[in-house]
């Protein structure tokens, strides 16, 4: 799974859950400050990401993932079968 694929997948999840258009989900965006996503929606996004990418995001790590790129990096590093 390339970073581009993860970003695209994350965009779909965020559009579905938070109503932010997928093309606005770009790497430097902050979930709270730029995308207006609250902590409850982040929980939903983390669960959906787990289903989509097969990567579990523990709570103590989720709180440190503040930007889109943070999540892309986390998934990229932990995804099974990722290069």
């Amino acid at each position: 799974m390339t970073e581009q694929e993860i970003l695209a997948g994350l965009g779909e999840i965020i559009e579905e859950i938070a109503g932010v258009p997928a093309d606005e989900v770009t790497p430097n965006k902050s979930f709270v400050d730029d995308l207006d996503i609250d902590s409850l929606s982040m929980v939903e996004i983390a669960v959906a990401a787990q289903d989509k990418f097969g990567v579990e995001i523990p709570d103590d790590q989720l709180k440190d993932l503040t930007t889109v790129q943070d999540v892309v990096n986390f998934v990229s590093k932990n995804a099974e079968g990722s290069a």
Partner: protein
Amino acid sequence: MTVDRETVVVTGLGATTPLGGDAASTWAAMLAGRSGVRRLTEPWAKELPAEVVGRVQARRMDRCEQFALVAAREAWADAGAPEMDPERLGVAVTSGIGGIGSILAGYDTLKEKGWSRISPFTVPMLMPNGSAGWISMEFGAHAGAHSLVSACASGAEALGYGIDMIRSGRADVVIAGGTEAAIMPLNIGAFAVMRAMSTRNDEPERASRPFDKARDGFVLGEGAGIVVLESLSHARRRGAVVHAVAAGAGYSSDAYHIAHPAPDGAGVTAAISRALADARVDPEQVVHVNAHATSTPEGDPIEAQALVKALGSAADGVIVSATKSMTGHLLGGAGAIESVAAVLALRDRVAPPTINLEEIDEDVPVDVAAEPRPLTKRGTEPMAVLNNAFGFGGHNVSLVFTAA
């Protein structure tokens, strides 16, 4: 010495009901005597269309909260969307049951997929004060958001609480009402096992028949009714259209049985008498009552007899309507929607019909309108209408509205 208190008026109306998506279409359907009752064929707890409440917002709101928000937006617009100090805007919106659909959906998820897959919005969706919270956010209301719960009296009690907020000086404007979305197998089963519901399943439009001899229980409805209550001085300052005066409220508790009404109707009589006293209205001013009358064999005659006790000889000139014959019973939404209907009856000087009234029960000693009937003033004082709402738990609420 009596200190004069603030007069409270109704400046906005909103409703989403089995008869229509707004107050005007609901009222038109009522005057036409249309039934909103039909057989259930759709999937349970279907979402409202996305264009009514946004798709993302709908994920976070129980169906009852969505109904409440839609009706609140209508009422607020009807009131002219007042520009006002947010510290002086309050909310009193409630539900008899709350987000039962979200409880059931959450429990299904728990059993099938485990706790981690439950929506993180489940708690705000199931709490009965969720609608009040959402409405306070939508309109930026900072004076306080409240949700008194008294089963099927909840919606009326919310209006009474809103009147108190304004009279006590805590708010100039209060968005008040009730909502319910409880047409689900658990609720239907739970009411059915109490033998409270009509079993006239072959003729759904004829199943809800308050005061009729052949009534056999209530029919569930869902939706919301919301009014904008406002101090008369605030309404005058901004030149608002006043639909009616929210003149007073009366309360009592039967302290008799958790689900049965007290057979002597003393609590109902007391609530009506206290409402008239609170409103400073004489029984002779009352021209119309939107009755609680749910179409149960037990409750309808008790209410009718209590009306006669409370109004005395003045009961003779009163036209009673039971709009649940058309909407079904909206539980915590009922008292609010029926207050919207009572205010519109007062405004348009017409009592809506009670459909399916083919042969009035001989134990019902009041004049029930089977067809729309004109309302005319009695004496020199402004005409008054009542709305009654009673709930399991023995809660009795009566509201009085007078002509603007």
